[in-house]
């Protein structure tokens, strides 16, 4: 019953409470992303099976032994996805056994081992949440921030610089300062294209891409020059211990406060976008700049502001990775978090809660990829394929509607009835 009332609530009243309704506005808007994910995994499975030598061999004998071909296909997919999700979520039985061992003998090793996979997925999800929020804020203002990757890099460099430059600050000052260093560097990198767009009408897509390259090459230079640690390796020094985001568990578990911070920031962005005048203006500009201008909203200010917030979040993403996991920065620091973030924002419908859920999904996929690569011998690149497929289906919902015979007019029908 409650479900039905939620669905039937007129959309005008939905902004009043912090609840799931924004993302779950009618089952309709969540159904498509879920089906997109499902379809992506199915096609991913086909790719896995189709690139497996034993499966191909079995299919060549399909007419002699059709059962064997199907069995080989099934085994190949089951092993791969079993390793993928076992490697990203762990086994509940092992976790339970680990807890039991801990309480009966005081030995936590088994428990630690059992929760390692899921903590690793959360570690991977952390920068994804920040970066996804960054792109989502841009989308809400009608800006396509492709520069999250460059801002991520600059944020990492900013925070690592603050992190290693001071040696005797207490953690309560040093850690926030290092985080701010990351935010500031990322915000600066975002502000430039924002300003150019607002002042000169230069397209932000072009300028954020260009800022990426400036960021990459600048980091090359910094890592080989001013920020290089003593010795020959082109990496920065390690940050001071006081600047580290504390880990929850002993090594090798790397889950840290960055994850909690990410959830906190996601809520903060939700509040900013939907509960404040600033957020309202940003969204108004995103919905229709001309109307916003006519209504007296300062377009220039909002473009710059949105890009500053977006860049700051991407910078924070880099900072969380440096301060929580890596503690130093070298070349190839990022595996493309900023680019994946575009996908996360799209999949999450640019809503903070959607972004968090999408980031968790990406964290699980990336986290399990290592184990899948090792146990099933499947290249990590398959994960990129699955991610890419999901995005294609999210970006082109008509494919999903056609695949699953979903009628598109449901929403309008509801409104006209009301």
């Amino acid at each position: 019953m409650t479900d039905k009332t939620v669905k039937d609530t007129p959309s005008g009243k939905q902004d009043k409470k912090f609840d799931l309704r924004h993302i779950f506005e009618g089952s309709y808007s969540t159904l498509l992303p879920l089906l997109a994910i499902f379809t992506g995994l199915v096609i991913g499975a086909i790719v896995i099976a189709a690139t497996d030598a034993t499966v191909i061999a079995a299919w060549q004998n399909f007419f002699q032994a059709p059962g064997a071909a199907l069995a080989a296909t099934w085994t190949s997919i089951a092993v791969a996805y079993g390793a993928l999700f076992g490697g990203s979520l762990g086994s509940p039985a092992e976790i339970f056994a680990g807890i039991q061992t801990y309480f009966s003998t005081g030995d936590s090793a088994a428990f630690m081992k059992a929760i390692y996979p899921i903590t690793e997925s959360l570690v991977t999800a952390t920068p994804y949440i920040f970066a996804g929020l960054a792109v989502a804020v841009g989308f809400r203002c009608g800006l396509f921030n492709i520069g999250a990757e460059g801002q991520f890099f600059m944020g990492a460099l900013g925070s690592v610089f603050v992190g290693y430059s001071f040696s005797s600050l207490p953690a309560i000052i040093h850690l926030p300062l290092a985080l701010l260093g990351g935010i500031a560097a990322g915000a600066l990198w975002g502000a430039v294209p924002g300003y150019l767009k607002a002042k000169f009408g230069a397209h932000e897509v072009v300028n954020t891409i260009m800022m990426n390259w400036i960021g990459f090459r600048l980091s090359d230079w910094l890592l080989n020059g001013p920020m290089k640690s003593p010795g020959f390796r082109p990496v920065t020094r390690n940050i001071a211990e006081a600047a580290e985001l504390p880990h929850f568990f002993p090594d090798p578990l790397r889950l840290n406060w960055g994850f909690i911070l990410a959830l906190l920031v996601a809520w903060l962005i939700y509040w900013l976008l939907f509960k404040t005048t600033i957020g309202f203006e940003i969204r108004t500009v995103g919905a229709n700049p001309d109307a916003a201008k006519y209504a007296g909203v300062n377009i220039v200010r909002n473009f710059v502001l949105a890009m500053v917030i977006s860049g700051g979040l991407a910078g924070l993403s880099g900072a969380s990775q440096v301060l929580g996991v890596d503690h130093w920065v070298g070349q190839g620091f990022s595996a493309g978090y900023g680019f994946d973030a575009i996908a996360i924002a799209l999949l999450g419908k640019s809503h903070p809660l959607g972004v968090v859920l999408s980031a968790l999904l990406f964290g699980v996929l990336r986290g399990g990829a290592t184990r899948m690569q090792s146990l099933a011998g499947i290249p990590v690149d398959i994960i990129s394929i699955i991610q890419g497929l999901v995005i294609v289906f999210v970006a082109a919902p008509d494919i999903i509607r056609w695949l699953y015979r979903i009628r598109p007019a449901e929403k309008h029908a509801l409104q006209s009835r009301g």
Partner: protein
Amino acid sequence: MKKLYTVLAVLLVATMILTACGAKPTAAPAEPTAAPVEPTAAPVAIKVGQVTDLGGIDDKSFNATAYAGVEKAAADFGITGKYLESQQQSDYAKNIQQFLDEDTDLIVTVGFLLGVDTATAAKANPDTKFAIVDYSYPDCFGDTAVEGQTCGSASELSNVLGLTFQTDEAGFLAGYAAAAMTKTGKVATFGGLEIPPVTIFMTGFEAGVKHYNTVHGTAVEVLPFTYTGNFESTDDGRAFAESFVQEGADIVMPVAGPVGLGSAAYCKESGSCMVIGVDNDWTVSAAEYKDIVLTSVLKNTNVAVYDAIKMIVDGTFKGGLYIGTLANGGVGIAAVNGASPELLAELEKLTADISSGAVKVK
């Protein structure tokens, strides 16, 4: 605002519970309760795992070459070999951990960027054997070095074998050959970064050219060393080769991984230069350019990795340092394209002289 406080409070409580959960196991001693009983009777296949650096397994450079060694060992000794690719620096520790979880006997890590993570894992798991390409321990020197952070270990590790290569010996031969083959009297070399594993090729090359000048009374010039600053951009490789040609060079040795393929592409299109490959034989790994590959400086990482695995199989594995030289086949040069019989004879003699110490490459 009230709502803000409520949510903050909830989050605070949630985080406190989370940390409480985290704190308890920290305090507990992490002692294994009972040693697992290993069935000693049945021979278990030896497991070898390779962790690549960011170049990936098909980098046509040391990751690929090292894995060729693993595959050869798998064919010869029946070991099981697999690899994990690193896509970012936080993957290094994660991938090593994955192999540790699988009770891998030998973990091969590729590249100096894995230096710290390898040492940390080796110290925590003294029963597991490691081999690291292009690195060795101890690596903590100077006042600023912090063990486990900026460097791996202050002392030699008994379960880690560092695989290093005297590539200057092979670079010397390539320089000698280049000096003999140049038509313009100018040759050039550039690197990805100014770091020892790169510059050692270049200094050897330069020394080889100078040796040729001394022996033959010529004045072949090596253009000043430059660096692209990265190991990725084939555009840089193209641009560097182009500018060297404009300065009069007709042979270029790029020491920058895949960047060099850009140089090869330029030389092939313009027909104005030849390249010297590094790490492996480019007439094989980059066969489309084989007409303009003069020779290749071979860094036989595969031989070193194979030898390390063989030591595990034989039970003779010891930590320390493996140095690949011309004498033990760890380094060498590939066939020289269009070389005269006289040059080949000279190179052969030079190889013997370097191995015996009669000719110094530095």
